[in-house]
Structure formats: C-alpha cells, structure tokens
C-alpha cells in the first residue's frame, strides 16, 4: 500500500511517501492511524491527534472509519487550507 503524507503530517514523519504492508487487523483508516503511530517517534507524533487528521483512499476523501478495502493509495493530511 502506498502511503502519502502532506503538510505537517509529512514533516513530522519525515517523508511524503512510503510503501507499507499493514497487518490484517488493520481494516479501516482509524486502525491504520493507530498502527502507523507504532512505527517510529515521527509517525507517533504525526498520528497523535487522529481528530486533526483527514484521509483519502485512491484520491477520494473518506471518513476515518472508512474501510481500506483494496486501497492502493492512502493519504493522510490535516484539514485543507487552499484558496
């Protein structure tokens, strides 16, 4: 699974992209956030406040309880601030 990170999520983790293979118990975005938090201190810091995170699966916004299904690309980021 390709993981993409943007804004301060990217900065805290230290990379904008990584390929990871989450365990089977990780079935939705919230699970994924919890699992990512265990990977490194940077990941832990980025995932510390899940309520401040937003997600997209295969480039579509999804809520945090969305199932991962056969996601190829999952992105995690703060609420958007463009325009």
């Amino acid at each position, binding site marked *: 699974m390709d993981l993409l990170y943007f804004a301060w999520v990217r900065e805290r983790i230290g990379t904008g992209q990584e390929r990871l293979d989450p365990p089977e118990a990780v079935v939705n975005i919230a699970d994924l956030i919890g699992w990512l938090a265990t990977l490194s201190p940077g990941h832990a810091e980025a995932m510390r406040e899940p309520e401040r995170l937003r997600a997209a699966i295969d480039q579509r916004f999804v809520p945090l309880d969305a199932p991962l299904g056969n996601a190829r690309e999952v992105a995690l980021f703060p609420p958007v*601030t463009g325009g």
Partner: protein
Amino acid sequence: MIRVSVDSAPIELSVEVAALEERGAGGVATFTGLVRGDDGVTALELEHYPGMTEAVLIDLAEAATSRWELLGVTIVHRVGIMTPGERIVFVGAAAHHRREALDACAYLIDRLKTDAPFWKREQIGEGARWVEARASDGDAAGRWL
C-alpha cells in the same frame, strides 16, 4: 469550456480573463485570492496532492457547469512559494446572465476552500506555521448544498 491549472508559475490574470471574455458571454465574474502581507507574513508556501487536486478541481468546475448555464469556467491555483501581494488562486465564470456568473464564481471559491487538497504554510521571519482550517469556510461551502 473548463480550464483547470495547478502550477508554480505566477497566475496571469489578463490571460485568464481574456480567455473567459472570448466565450461570447454577457458577463464574466472573477475572484482572485492574494497573499496578505499583514500579520508579518513574509512568504506563503502552498502544498498540494498531485493528481487528486487537479481531479477535484475538474469535478468542481463540472459541478458548476451542471448547476448553472455557463459558457466558461476557469480555476487556476498556484503552488510553491509566493510573497505578499501575489495571486494564490483565480476563479472565473462566464455566462449569458450575470446572476449565473456571480453565483458560480462564489460557489467555485467557497467549495475550493473546503474540498481541494491544498495546504498553506506561512513564513513569518525565521519561523513558519501551517495555517489552520477555519470553521467559517465549512459554513460558506455549506450554503451550496
């Protein structure tokens, strides 16, 4: 006619407006967002989600054209580093009647603010901070549901 662009080059307002004016419309409404220089901000950096951002903007332009009778819709968003006074975003709509153009223009910028994956980081002297999303933007986008 829809034009969507996400680019690090400065936004050429005259070119964008001219393209809308050439659609044969009775009116063109535009909104341009600029980097404000107050609060001590010395530079603004815009990050986006390549691929998804463009797709969201195209969806948004198409939603506007199905909602109003439009002859042209343009959404241009700059990314990368920009300085106070520079243009961040330009949205424009051309229509036979002014109400359509004005409403579509407001719709495009309201929804872009909440739906398009961009993130702003403000440079203030030596420091930098990621801009927080504002609840009022959600309210503004909600007007169009």
